[in-house]
């Protein structure tokens, strides 16, 4: 933190951390709100979604490349952990390490093959990879148990201590989710994170400053795989039973949509997305027949209302007010300023992030 810079400089650095503290704060507060077995089960699922979306945010939000492979990687992590625990009797702790490594390697392989492709083609390569993984989960019966799923996964344990109590299972996932959020935050504000975002904003300029697009995006995609591996292993040890249907194409779409709607690229996007996904799952329990239809409508309305995601929209409005305050010397947060003043267009067509990609 630089002391002698004026308030704006200092405020900028702390604002980013503010979004990280929201994420960790929620992870701590949720079990305090309601700690029945059922709520803890919900919070655990929410935390697993948070890990998945934090990983996806690195490639989708920061690097600006849509990936439909996250559900496939999520499944690969779950099966890697489940199989090593059930078929090869690996202790759960070791399986929790093996799974992310396996998924990262596969993600790097897919990344090497598809990273040079332009936006939509990269997305379709990830769709293909995700779908091949999903089909293999259902077909390789001796290894994965096929459509019947993999039964008899032991609970997570370190040494003799078994994590069977719901509060302990939540604590395990929440701690890893918080750790994941901190690491993602570090990357986001670091030079690497900036370079990744810079690459999304202007390819030529990023090359000119010496940022290697291929290496950066491969790192982001590999990391998103690592996060999915951790989330998969936790899902395996939490549910103690995994079957292919949880990792299908619809889940891959839901993950991307939840992140885009909540604000890809922002630190607070993943936690909002995780809450949304868990809310939908709980909501779906009551209105079974109409659930797909309702979810589709909410999703379309959200995409139309917020091309840059909820958090993106809220942040943009906050920045509008802050800049107007700066220019006209009003105090920050003076809400009397006229709402919705449009930005001054720079010479080339309006360069909102949305248009630029």
């Amino acid at each position, binding site marked *: 933190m630089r002391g002698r810079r004026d308030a704006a400089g200092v405020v900028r650095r702390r604002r980013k951390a503010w979004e990280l503290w929201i994420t960790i704060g929620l992870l701590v507060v949720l079990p305090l709100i309601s700690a029945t077995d059922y709520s803890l089960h919900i919070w655990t699922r929410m935390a697993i979604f948070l890990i998945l979306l934090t990983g996806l945010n690195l490639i989708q939000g920061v690097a600006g490349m849509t990936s439909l492979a996250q559900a496939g990687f999520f499944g690969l992590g779950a099966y890697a952990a489940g199989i090593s625990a059930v078929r090869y009797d690996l202790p759960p702790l070791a399986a929790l390490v093996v799974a992310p490594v396996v998924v990262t390697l596969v993600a790097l392989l897919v990344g090497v093959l598809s990273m040079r492709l332009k936006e939509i083609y990269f997305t379709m390569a990830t769709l293909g990879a995700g779908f091949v993984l999903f089909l293999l989960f259902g077909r390789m019966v001796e290894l994965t148990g096929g459509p019947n799923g993999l039964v008899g996964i032991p609970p997570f344990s370190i040494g003799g201590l078994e994590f069977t109590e719901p509060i302990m299972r939540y604590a395990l996932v929440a701690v890893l989710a918080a750790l994941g959020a901190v690491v993602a935050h570090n990357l986001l504000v670091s030079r690497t994170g900036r370079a990744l975002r810079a690459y999304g904003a202007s390819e030529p300029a990023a090359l000119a400053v010496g940022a290697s697009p291929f290496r950066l995006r491969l790192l982001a995609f590999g990391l998103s795989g690592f996060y999915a591996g951790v989330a998969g292993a936790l899902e395996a040890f939490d549910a103690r039973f995994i079957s292919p249907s949880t990792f299908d194409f619809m889940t891959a779409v839901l993950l991307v949509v939840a992140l885009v709607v909540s604000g890809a690229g922002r630190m607070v996007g993943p936690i909002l997305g995780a809450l949304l996904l868990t809310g939908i799952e709980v909501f779906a329990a009551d209105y079974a027949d109409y659930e797909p239809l309702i979810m*589709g409508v909410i999703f379309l309305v959200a995409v139309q209302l917020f091309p840059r995601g909820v958090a993106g929209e809220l942040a943009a409005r906050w920045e509008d007010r802050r800049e107007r305050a700066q220019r006209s010397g009003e105090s920050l947060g003076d809400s009397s300023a006229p709402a919705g003043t449009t930005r001054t267009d720079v010479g080339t067509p309006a360069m909102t992030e*949305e248009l630029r990609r």
Partner: protein
Amino acid sequence: MDTGLLIQVILSGLSVGAIYALVAVGFGVIFNATGAINFVQGEYVMVGGLSAAMLYEAWDVPVLVAIVAAVAVTVLLGVLTEFGLLGFGRLRTPASITIATIAIAVIVKGSAMLISDRDTYALPSVLGTDSLQVLGASTSRQTVLNLLLAVAAVAALTLFFQCTKLGTTLRAAAGDSETLQTFGVSYRTTARWAFVIAAALGALAGAGLAPLTVMSFDSGTLLGLKGFAAAMLGGLGNPRGALAGGLLLGIAEAVMSGYGAAAYADVVAFVVLLAILTLRPTGMFGTARAVRT
């Protein structure tokens, strides 16, 4: 070498391939006009087939009338899709339009589930059910009709894109829709025409597929993804490429079912998609386009 099996594999591949080709052409039309991937394309096939079968089974309407009505219903759905995507004027980049088509696909499938009450419906073939024996293998007249349908659709579209005014505008839109607007061509009208054509193609594919199997609200999704793989194989946006891609993909799956591990037949489509994207993203006949960064 059992030639009967080889012929049967090829015939089966062509039969399924014709449907993939029709879906692939649909993807191409929308990609040319908007640059986006239309995830609703698979559901157009479902809506076409399902509405034809429901009209036939529920109200005993002659098969041909049911098919024509089904095409009309699907075209209306196409116009609604365009409105749902571009009507609000907020989505501009292909990426955001593509994500919005996913939302609409979920809505269409959800509504179809409610309307069809999760039931399955069948539509008899216009040409009767007895099979044709060809060189020791067999196929159905419906398959021949589907093949003719696919070839005719591709030929018509190729001519349409080349010769008609609207066709050239649709092709130009693929290049740069902003400049097109400066020539007074409304981006919305070209997009609407593109969705009408794609929906009609989808409905025809559905009506062609229904007699071969049964239709349910769930029949569209996987078919859409495989149709996209075929479009990529042939070269996205190129009608002839879509035909070749569809037939080749159908035959590849049939070979896997006939000779390889039949259970993995479905994996073929996505392995092909991955291979094409990494080795030759413009596909076999695609125009060299800025595909790599």
